[in-house]
C-alpha cells in the first residue's frame, strides 16, 4: 500500500467530512458528480476501516495505539493536538461506525423519500465526526468531534423527521448538550487535577502512572463523567429523550444515533474512565449496578407495553445499555477486567449493528404499510419473504441468540456479573426473556398470521426488498453473522489490550 496506515486513518476521517461539506454546496456542482461523491463518501471509509482492521492484527502488540499520527494545531499551549490512532477498544467501534454509516447512507441515497444532497452531506459530516471521535487519542478532540453531530442532527431531524419532529429535535439537542457539557466539565476536572500539561491519553497515562490521582479527585471526576456520559447513553433515569428522538428521526439518522453515537459515552468511560479513574468508578459500582438493572428490567417492561414498532426498538436499545453498564460496573473485580470490558465492547458492537438493522427494517416496513403500529399489521411475509427473513434474523440477533455477535457480548457480561453477585446476574438474565417476548411478538404481529389492517390495505402494492435495501441490510447482517460465528476475530482484542493499553493506574481491589 503506497499510503502509510496512519495517513489512511486520517484520510478515512477527513474524507466524509470534506465530501459532506462539499455536498452542502450541491447547487453548484452537477448532480451526477454529487451523487458519485456521496457514494464515495459512504463506501470509502468502510473500505479503509476494514483494511485497517485487517492490518491491525499485524501490528506490534506492545504499542498502545496503532496507526498513530499527530497534527499540531494552534492551541499547543493547552496540550491539545489532533492525535489520531486506534487501539483495541477503538477499532471495533471505528468499524461499526463505518458499517452503519455506509448502510444508512446507501439506503438514503437510493430511496426516493429522502433523496437530497443536503441530507447526505449532513449525514457524512456526522459519520466523519464520530469516526474521528473514536480514532482520537486526544480527549478534547474526542469530545469535539463527537459534538460536531449536534447541528447536523438538529437540521436533519427538523426537515426530514416524522411527526412531532420539531419538539423532538430541540429536546434532543438540549438534553444531549446538557450531558455533553457535564461530561466536558468531567474531562476538564481530569485535566486540572492531574496537573498534566496535555489532553493526550498516552501522556496522561504516563503522567498518572507516576503520580496517580487522589481517590477524592477520582470520585468527583467519575461522578461528573458518569452523569454526563450516562445522559448521552440513556442511563436510567436520563433516558426520556431517546424514544421520541429515535422514532421521529429519519432512518439513517436514527441508525447513527442509536447505533453509534450512543456508544460514544460508554467508549469514553472505558477509554478514559477505567484507565485513569478506576478507584473513582469503583465507588459508584453499587449505583451503576442498580441503575443498569433498572435499565434492563424497568425499561424492559416498558418495551413490552409498546404497540409501535419504532418505539419498541427505541426502548429496547435503552434496555440493552443496561447490560453494558452492568459490565462496566464489574470492572473493579480482580481478574475479570478484560472479561467485563471485552464483553461490553462486543455487546456495543453487536448492539450497534442490531439496532441499526432494526431501525432500517422499520423504515422499510413503514414505506410499505405506511404505519409502524404492530397490532394493525399482519401477514406481511406473504408478500415480503426476504424482508421477513431479515427481520427475524435481526430480532434474534437482538435477543442474543448464539450465532450472532450479541450472544458473545451478553454471555461474557453475564460471566462477569455472576462473579460479582449471582442474584444480580439472575435478574439481568431475565432481560433476555423480556427481549424474547417482545421480539417474537413483534415478528408475529407484523409478519405472520392473516393479512389485516394496514397490510391488507396496501397488500397489492407491497413489494419485497429492492436491490439497494438488500445491500444495506446485508452489510449489517453479514457482519453480525460473521462475527457471531467467528468471534476469534473480536476476542483477539481483549487479550491484546490486557497486555498493553488497559493498565489501570491503580487497582480497585478493596
Amino acid at each position: 500500500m503506497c499510503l502509510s496506515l496512519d495517513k489512511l486513518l486520517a484520510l478515512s476521517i477527513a474524507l466524509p467530512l470534506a465530501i459532506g461539506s462539499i455536498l452542502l454546496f450541491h447547487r453548484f456542482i452537477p448532480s451526477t458528480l454529487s451523487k458519485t461523491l456521496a457514494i464515495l463518501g459512504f463506501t470509502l471509509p468502510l473500505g479503509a476501516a476494514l483494511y485497517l482492521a485487517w492490518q491491525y492484527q499485524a501490528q506490534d502488540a506492545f504499542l498502545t495505539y496503532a496507526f498513530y499520527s499527530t497534527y499540531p494545531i494552534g492551541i499547543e499551549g493547552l496540550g491539545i493536538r489532533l492525535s489520531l490512532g486506534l487501539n483495541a477498544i477503538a477499532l471495533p467501534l471505528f468499524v461499526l461506525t463505518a458499517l452503519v454509516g455506509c448502510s444508512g447512507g446507501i439506503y438514503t441515497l437510493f430511496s426516493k423519500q429522502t433523496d437530497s444532497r443536503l441530507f447526505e452531506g449532513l449525514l457524512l459530516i456526522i459519520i466523519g465526526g464520530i469516526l474521528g471521535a473514536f480514532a482520537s487519542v486526544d480527549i478534547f478532540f474526542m469530545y469535539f468531534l463527537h459534538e460536531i453531530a449536534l447541528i447536523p442532527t438538529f437540521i436533519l431531524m427538523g426537515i426530514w423527521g416524522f411527526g412531532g419532529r420539531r419538539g423532538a429535535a430541540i429536546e434532543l439537542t438540549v438534553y444531549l448538550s446538557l450531558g455533553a457539557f457535564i461530561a466536558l466539565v468531567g474531562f476538564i476536572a481530569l485535566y486540572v487535577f492531574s496537573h498534566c500539561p496535555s489532553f493526550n491519553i498516552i501522556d496522561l497515562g504516563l503522567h498518572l502512572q507516576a503520580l496517580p490521582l487522589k481517590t477524592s479527585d477520582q470520585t468527583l471526576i467519575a461522578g461528573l463523567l458518569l452523569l454526563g456520559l450516562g445522559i448521552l447513553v440513556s442511563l436510567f433515569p436520563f433516558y426520556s429523550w431517546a424514544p421520541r428522538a429515535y422514532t421521529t428521526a429519519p432512518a439513517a439518522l436514527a441508525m447513527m444515533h442509536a447505533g453509534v453515537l450512543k456508544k460514544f459515552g460508554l467508549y469514553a468511560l472505558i477509554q478514559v474512565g477505567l484507565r485513569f479513574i478506576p478507584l473513582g468508578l469503583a465507588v459508584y459500582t453499587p449505583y451503576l449496578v442498580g441503575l443498569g438493572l433498572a435499565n434492563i428490567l424497568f425499561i424492559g417492561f416498558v418495551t413490552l407495553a409498546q404497540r409501535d414498532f419504532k418505539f419498541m426498538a427505541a426502548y429496547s436499545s435503552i434496555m440493552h445499555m443496561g447490560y453494558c453498564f452492568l459490565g462496566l460496573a464489574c470492572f473493579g473485580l480482580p481478574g475479570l477486567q478484560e472479561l467485563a470490558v471485552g464483553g461490553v465492547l462486543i455487546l456495543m458492537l453487536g448492539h450497534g449493528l442490531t439496532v441499526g438493522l432494526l431501525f432500517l427494517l422499520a423504515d422499510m416496513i413503514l414505506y410499505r404499510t405506511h404505519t409502524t403500529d404492530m397490532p394493525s399489521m399482519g401477514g406481511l411475509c406473504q408478500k415480503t419473504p426476504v424482508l421477513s427473513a431479515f427481520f427475524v434474523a435481526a430480532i434474534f440477533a437482538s435477543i442474543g441468540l448464539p450465532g450472532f455477535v450479541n450472544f458473545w457480548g451478553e454471555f461474557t457480561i453475564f460471566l462477569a456479573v455472576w462473579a460479582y453477585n449471582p442474584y444480580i446476574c439472575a435478574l439481568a438474565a431475565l432481560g433476555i426473556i423480556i427481549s424474547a417476548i417482545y421480539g417474537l411478538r413483534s415478528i408475529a404481529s407484523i409478519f405472520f398470521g392473516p393479512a389485516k389492517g394496514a397490510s391488507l390495505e396496501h397488500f397489492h402494492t407491497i413489494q419485497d426488498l429492492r436491490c439497494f435495501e438488500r445491500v444495506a441490510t446485508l452489510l449489517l447482517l453479514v457482519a453480525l453473522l460473521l462475527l457471531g460465528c467467528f468471534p476469534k476475530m473480536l476476542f483477539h482484542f481483549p487479550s491484546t489490550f490486557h497486555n498493553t493499553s488497559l493498565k489501570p493506574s491503580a487497582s480497585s481491589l478493596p
Partner: protein
Amino acid sequence: MHAVFTSLAYSNHWVLLWPELSFVVLGLLLLVLGCFQKVTHSGLCIVSAFALLGQLALVLAFSMGGFLQEALPAVPNFAGLVLHSPTGDTLRLFFMLTSLAISVLALPYLKNRLLARAEFYSLLVFVSAGLMLLVQSQHCILFFVTLEFVTLGFYILISYASSDVFSLEAGLKYLILGAFTSCLLLLGIALLYGLATTPAFIQGDGLYFADLGQFLQNYGSHPMAQLAVVCIVLGLGFKLGAFPFQLWVPDVYQGAPTPVTAFLATASKAGGFVALMNLLFGPFAAMACTLKPLLSWVAILTLTLASITALTQRNMKRFLGLSGLSHTAYLILGLVAAYDLPEIKTALLFYLFAYSIGSFLVFGCLSYLGKNTEDNLLALEGLDTLHQRSPFLSAMLTVGLGSLAGAPPFIGFVAKFFIFIALFKAKLYTLLIFGIFGAVLSIYYYFTWIRKLYFSTAPQDTVEKLSLCRGYGAYLLLLALLTVLWICLPLSFSTSMFQP
C-alpha cells in the same frame, strides 16, 4: 520646570500613533468627499468605495508594519498617557478589522436608504480611532475623554436613521442612560482624584493609572476608595450591558440601524471590556477583595437575566442584544477567574474575537434581510422558509448562530471551553455551574432560531428566491470559514496559557 516640560515634550512620539491619526485623517477626507458627492446612488457608491479601500489599505499597512511582536516591551508615550504594548497593538488591529467589517456590513443597509453616507463612514472611523486610543490609555482623563468620544459617536450613529421613530427613540434612551453612567464614572474618578492627590501620597498628578495603583495598594481598604472603585466599575459596565445597566440593550439594539447595532455589539462591547480589564489589573489590582464578589454577582445576574429574557424574544435584534448579554457575562466570569490566573487575559481577548466573528456573520445576514423592509421589525417569522428562499443565507446564519451558541465545531465553543477551564482551575465551581447552565440555555434559544430557518417548508412554487450579491456573499463566506477553520489560526497565545 523647564526641564520637566522639555522631557515631557520629547516623549511625544506622534508617529507611534499613526494608526489612530490615519483613521482620523481618513474620516476627515470622507467628510470632504461627501461635500462634493450628490446624495444619489452612484455618488454614494464612490464614498463607500473610498471608505472601504482606505480602511483596507490601513489594515494591511498596520499588519505588515511589524508592530505585533511579542518581544517588544511596552512603550509609554505622551508623558505616560498612552502605553503601546503588544496587546494594545493586537487590539488596534482588532478595532481596525471591526471597522472594516462593519463598513462592508453597512452596504446593503445604506444602499436602499438615501441617507448621507459620508458622515456614517467618517463617524465609524472616528469612533474606531477613539476605541483604539481607549484601550491604550493609562491616564484617567484620556480614558474618560476617549470613552466619551466613543459614546458621543454612538449617540449620533444610533439615531442615524433620523426619519425612523425607533432610531430616534433608541438614541434618546442611549443618551440618557449613557449620560447617567458617565456621571457615575466621573464621580468615581473624581473621588479617587480627591483621595489620592495629596503630596503625602503621590508626587504629582493623581490621575495616572500607575499612581492610582500605588495609592490603592496602600489605602485601598478606605470606604471612600472602595466606593470610588465600585462607581467606576459599574459605570464602565454600562458599555458592556452588565447588570444593573442592561435595560438599554434591547431597545437600543432594536432601534439602531443594523450596522450600528453590529458595531455596538462588537466594538463598543470590546472597547468597554478591555478598558475594564486594563483598570482591574492595572490600578485596581489591589482591590480584589471588593471587586471579585462584585463582579461575580454582576456576572451571575447578567447571565440569568440574559438567558431568561432571551428565551421569549421574537424580534431578531432585541434577541441578539439580550443573548449578547450572556456573552458579556462569560467575559466577566473570565475576569473573575483572571485574578487567580493572569494568563487567561489572552483567552478573554480570544473570546471577544470569536464572539465578534459570530456576530458579524449573524448581523451580516440580518443586514441583508432587512435591506428593503423596516429593519427594526425584523422578527422571527421573517426567517420562515429561508432555507428555501436562500440556502446560502440560511447556512451562514446557522454557522453564525451556532458559533454564538457555543456549539462545536465552531470557534465560539473553543472560546467557551477556555473560560470553563479557567473557571475550574481558579476553583470557582459555583460560577462554573452557572456557566454550564448558561451554555445549555444559550444552545436552546439560539437553536430555536435555527429551527425557524429550516423546519418549515412551503410548496416549491410559492417560494420566491432571494439573490445575494456575490461580493457580499464572499464576505459572509470568509467569516463562516474563519468560524470553522479556527484550527488553522495561529493561536500562539495559548503557549503561555494554563501552564500547570
